[in-house]
């Protein structure tokens, strides 16, 4: 077609016109910053918290609550129980909780003693459990935690038979979602005299713990290790096996075969106080994808009713909890969310009277409130992930425990509200059939139909029992 002679072509923008610059999708500003940082440091980035990248999550699922085809319960008047029992497979004394939300293992060392104390108080008041971490059990957390799970980690820092006997359950940690395959890490600035003493380490060293257990290796050995711990505790205490979410289907089967009472799967959104960023963002699978694999493994072994399943990694809301239960978890575990409830990333800390702005302290770390993942520095502006005596005083255990309590209460209210709307009088009656997915990815990972269809990507119609 000829261009009319009176029309002129649009002007070509001059070179360098900001409105017409073309950014690289492969080498965007973040990637360039990563490369520049590497050129200056020569050392990989280490940080705290969990994966920051956008991932498929429980937000990609919705509940198909009751209507004409289902009968709801009254949201405020009719009872809906959230009582949760874990570890009844072999243990004489299973764990009985009032809510299906537990506090994940976080060490004294990574957290201040005040933070551990606050978590214990809150968990006890809400009738749930808290968990030790890589560094042993402190007297404060034992005192404040009605139900305390004692971790048996590769490092065995501070591990001893007296604390084992006074624990309520034992959790053998094979890995965690933030760094499956990697060992623990606590940089020198947090290895205080007390932390060093508990871990039998020189004060101030950069502690890198083992990634493998010292006294057993494969799953056959794990079975014997579990037997040893049962024998020491006279078969009273439930034994959990915690793993980072990678080859979940196989790993869950092996843990069950080895004799676990409870399997804990920690998805890639799970947090840490310090590890290499490349682990945090590039290892493991999302929690949403991990949970159905774990459930499938249990169901295939006909063990779903016998072995407890706890899922963790990026659980934030009551809706997350409810969806996890509907997909087959018996309980969830929260770490980062509990820290945020304590005040993590708050602009202010509260000294008991007033709110004190600590934005400058965040700035000194090179970050700001809402963006901080600098747990590894030990300079937590709100006194949670620190061993500094002055910073630690910024967290008042009694007050912080109240915040965590309120948060746990909201989670449980939301779970029971959703369960009632689905017609359930027990939160553990929520089921996969109550869910639909908003994205194809979530439908494939969670193995629930894409909303408005009966289509589950990757599943035959004969598998789902519904035509498409």
């Amino acid at each position, binding site marked *: 077609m000829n261009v009319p002679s009176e029309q002129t072509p649009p002007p070509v923008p001059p070179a360098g016109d900001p409105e017409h610059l073309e950014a690289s999708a492969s080498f965007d500003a973040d990637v360039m910053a990563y490369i520049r940082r590497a050129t200056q*440091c*020569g*050392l990989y980035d280490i940080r705290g918290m969990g994966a920051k990248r956008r991932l498929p999550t429980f937000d990609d699922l919705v509940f198909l609550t009751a209507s004409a085809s289902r009968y709801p319960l009254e949201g405020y008047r009719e009872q809906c129980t959230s009582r949760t029992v874990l570890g009844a497979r072999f243990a004489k004394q299973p764990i009985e909780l009032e809510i299906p939300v537990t506090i994940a293992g976080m060490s004294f060392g990574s957290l201040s003693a005040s933070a551990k104390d606050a978590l214990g108080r809150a968990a006890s008041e809400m009738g749930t459990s808290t968990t030790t971490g890589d560094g042993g059990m402190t007297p404060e957390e034992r005192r404040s935690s009605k139900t305390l799970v004692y971790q048996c980690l590769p*490092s*065995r820092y501070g*591990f*001893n*038979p007296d604390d*084992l*006997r006074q624990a309520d359950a034992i959790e053998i940690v094979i890995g965690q979602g933030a760094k499956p395959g990697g060992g623990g890490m606590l940089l*020198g600035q947090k290895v205080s005299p007390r932390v060093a003493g508990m*871990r*039998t*380490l*020189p004060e101030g*060293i*950069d502690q890198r713990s*083992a990634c493998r257990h*010292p*006294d*057993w290796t494969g799953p056959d*050995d794990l079975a*014997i*290790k579990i*037997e*040893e711990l049962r*024998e*020491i*505790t*006279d*078969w009273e205490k439930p034994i959990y096996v915690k793993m980072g979410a990678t080859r979940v289907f196989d790993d869950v089967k092996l843990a069950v075969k080895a004799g676990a009472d409870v399997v804990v799967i920690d998805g890639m959104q799970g947090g840490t106080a310090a590890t290499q960023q490349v682990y945090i963002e590039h290892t493991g699978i999302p929690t949403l994808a991990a949970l159905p694999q774990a459930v499938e493994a249990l169901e295939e072994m006909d063990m779903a009713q016998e072995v407890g399943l706890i899922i963790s990694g990026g659980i934030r809301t009551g809706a997350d909890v409810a969806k996890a239960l509907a997909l087959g978890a018996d309980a969830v575990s929260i770490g980062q969310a509990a820290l945020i409830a304590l005040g993590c990333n708050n602009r202010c800390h509260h000294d008991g009277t007033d709110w004190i702005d600590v934005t400058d302290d965040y700035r000194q770390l090179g970050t700001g409130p809402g963006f901080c993942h600098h747990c590894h520095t030990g300079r937590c502006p709100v006194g949670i992930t620190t061993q500094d005596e002055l910073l630690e005083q910024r967290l008042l255990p009694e007050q912080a425990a109240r915040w965590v309590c309120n948060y746990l209460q909201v989670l449980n209210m939301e779970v029971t509200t959703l369960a009632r709307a689905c017609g359930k009088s027990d939160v553990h009656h929520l089921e996969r059939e109550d869910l639909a997915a908003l994205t194809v990815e979530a439908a494939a990972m969670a193995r629930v139909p894409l909303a408005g269809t009966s289509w589950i990507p990757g599943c035959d119609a004969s598998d789902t029992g519904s035509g498409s």
Partner: protein
Amino acid sequence: MSDTVSFDLAQVSVRELNRYFHSELPGSEVTRISVQNPNGRHSIGVGLDCPVEVEIHGHAGYFIAGMNKQAKVTVHGNVGWSVGENMMSGEVRVNGHASESAGASAHGGLLAIDGDASSRCGISLKGGNLVVAGDVGHFSAFMAQAGTMVVCGNAGANLGDSLYEAVVYVGGAIDSLGADAREEPMEATDVEAVRGLLAEAGFEGDAGSFRRVASARSLYHWNAEAHQEY
């Protein structure tokens, strides 16, 4: 009641034996326990917590005397993995050979092995004393944090990899040292320490002929320039 009680593991289970150790033995007048026919069973005598002498007559399996406190346990035979693991105090003696990870994470007490010990002997040691009359396998004393290990025979490859403050003394040849481990001069206090531990274990040896291996402490802090060549 006799001060000696016998258990025949051909007749009773390990569970029954350990239940007795934990619930009936403490506070009783029993001072000696004889265990017959262990036949390679695991977890015999785990979680002991009283000053009793336990004699196990025969070969035993994994985790024998695990997490021991106070008790003196003697195995007249060979043992499987992780004998005396996480021992806190007391004494565990093997009149035979030990398989892998002997004394793993032991915090205290004495583990004496009359024969050889396999790989990762003394791994993650946190304060106990470990004396081996024979040889030890590769990666022994891996990440050992505190305590002392005496090896009268030879040590396999990568001895003392990633050591912290534990010290290893070797009477024979060392196949190779692990990352951050180095040989240091034997001082008079080292000779005295070896002599004392040999005597405590009841083993013979010329304390002055041992070599001392300890941490070079170059891994205590991040070193980006190391290029995995420690």
